[in-house]
């Protein structure tokens, strides 16, 4: 990945980070659609995959996404109390909080993994979160910039 001089000066180490975005079908997926319907704009770096519920997300999906070349993973679901499947988001929160801890322990910068709640009406929050995450990850080198991956030398 070559970075221009200008980008180096502004602290940009990865102009084009790849972020895997998990959407749930009932809240954040509809929120993402609403961002489209409202013609809001966000960077094309987020690559969406829709699951029925955040509780469908197996922790290994997150880990494997990094192994497959992601620079970051963003998981979005319903707010607490709003889950279409009653308690799926609580389960996701518990599981993925452990994943966040694990990733940190093995030397992955915590900015690379984010879990947040976005309702079907929160298109602006969706745009804010995705844009923020892309901006954050531009300032980190690509995940695979060293042969072992991760940010252990940071």
């Amino acid at each position: 990945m070559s970075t221009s001089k200008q980008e180096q000066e502004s602290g940009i180490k990865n102009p084009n980070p790849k972020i895997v975005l998990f959407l749930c079908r009932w809240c954040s997926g509809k929120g993402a659609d609403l961002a489209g319907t409202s013609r809001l704009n966000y960077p094309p770096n987020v690559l969406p995959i829709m699951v029925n519920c955040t509780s469908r997300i197996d922790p290994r999906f997150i880990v494997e996404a990094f192994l497959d070349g992601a620079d970051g993973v963003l998981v979005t679901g319903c707010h607490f109390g709003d889950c279409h499947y009653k308690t799926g988001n609580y389960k996701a929160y518990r599981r993925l909080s452990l994943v966040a801890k694990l990733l940190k322990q093995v030397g992955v910068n915590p900015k690379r993994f984010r879990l947040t709640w976005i309702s079907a009406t929160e298109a602006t929050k969706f745009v804010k979160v995705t844009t923020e995450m892309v901006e954050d990850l531009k300032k980190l080198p690509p995940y695979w910039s060293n042969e072992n991956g991760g940010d252990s030398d940071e």
Partner: protein
Amino acid sequence: MDEKKKVGVFVCHCGRNIAQTVDIEKLMEKVREKYDVELVEDNMYMCSDPGQNLLKESIQAKNLNRVIVAACSRDMHEPTFRSAAQEAGLNPYLVEIANIREQVSWVHDDKEKATEKASKIIGSTIEKVIRDEPLEPLKIPVVQRALVIGGGIAGIQAALDIADAGYEVTLVEKSPTIGGHMAQLAETFPTLDCSQCILTPKMVAVSRHPKINLLTTSEVVSVDGYVGNFKVQIRKNPRYVDVDKCNLCDDCTAVCPVVVHDEYNQSLSPRKAIYIPFPQAVPASYVIDEETCLGIDPLICSKCKDVCLVEAINFDMQPEIIEEEFGAIIVATGYDTYPIENIGEYGYGAHPDIISGLDFERLLSANGPTQGVIRRPSDGKVPKTVVFVHCAGSRDPAKHLPYCSKICCMYSTKHALQYKHLVHDGTAINFYIDVRTAGKDYEEFYKRAAEEEKVIYVRGKVSEIIEDGDQLLVKGVDTLLGEAVEVHADLVVLATGLVPSKGTQEISHLLKLSCDSKGFLKEAHPKLKPVESALSGIFIAGTASGPKDIPETVSQASGAAAKAATILASEFLEREPQIAQVDPTTCGLCHTCINVCPYGAIYLDEGVRRITVREALCEGCGSCAAACPSGSIELKNSTSEGIRAQIKALLQG
């Protein structure tokens, strides 16, 4: 299973909606190059007839066994393309949507990057579709009975409409009578119909309808299940008077020693602990107020029981739990008015002559505390000057309700007009921010009040109301003249707005219905699905979803009834077959899936010692699949292997 996967990809231009940001030619080229697909086609509008025909013809001509439509959100046209594929002989669950409009063309500017992202999304969808299995929808029998919660005008209308369509209805009302707030109103705008006269025939119709099971003094305590098959528990609280025996002789109230506030008359008059809410109450029966009666105990006081010749009074009645199944539910739990106790600038409701709009309705009513003669609460004198304060606690985001309650301008105008009709030489002054009269014949009604009936309108807010001798001094501003105004009034009526009722708040938790920021129930879509909740089979009517006038409430009730009847009309409903399935060869019977399932849909079949999924209960969240330590339980057409392949395709495509 091992047949070759022949994937057809159909790319939609959506006019210019997709094509202006995604280079369709380049996208099709990329898809052809990168992925193993049988055919890539495009169309200006895939959802149009020519687009659907292209899909159908291609499936047949090329023997496609998997289809991807790259177009808008799956919420828009997934059913369209699935049924088109089905017409061409393909199982509908072998069709997938790649969303390249809402999540690509409408949110990105850079054409090259957008095209790249669209290609990745299609690549990822290909990984999903080639793993999809043909599925058959599950058929679930429908319980052909509806539950209506709330017995105000919305619930009454909804129950009558469903019952008239030929289905059984249970109408549950918390208080001892149906009728709701509408039964408290004097006359209704803009026609000045007497509210009771138009409402009570409908109440009687409810009680006489053979298809309606009316449960008063009852509350819904739990709801389980799903559309077509809700399992509901209702608690019927005791009324201590046998409805069938009570002959309304009124002997009991004459001897009852307990005197309390009458809530029907907004506490402007007293009632006894045994009472009938109002003469036309339905069911027509007295009721004992458990909280104020001397103890529902014949040893302490049994005066009412002693005088009741028909022996209708029974102190031994117990709460009863009724369990019933319903196919559809209508929530019509109504509103409360914003408490004037919250409005400090207008005296916190402490002064007896500063009253709410609903209090004034009672003073105007022929069956009210003053028999329809307007007397002020403090000394019973007929007020010569009445000030009506619009937007009392409304449109005030800093201190009170931020929103407009829609009906207060009209009801204040009605109040002023009715006051002028009853007190000819009286002065009626309305302080308003704007007069909002959107509704059929509403503007004419306002003009009539202001121009023909000499009701005074002053544009400006009232800042303070203070006691001045036996009068009230209303301090405000006339923003048209730009000067301060002070008026002495004998009575002040605050036009308070509507807030979600306590029952609405409780039912939203019980049914897991989402609410908006004000606590009103949220519709599935504010414009196109105004009476549907986000939960299939649960509908909303009337002011539970926001302030409304009577005509709008009644039309919503009929709308919700029609929606409910659509469900009840079918014997079976089709349910998504994307549910969990267990691989018994690797399952270690660890019970993890049983513990995480929110629906109790997974159990250990003791006979064969296998974990088994109850198909009718599984909703397909996939929580079990994520939790299974051996990967033995999977969600159909959303397997772990499939999702991992999708992620890989997004990153490496």
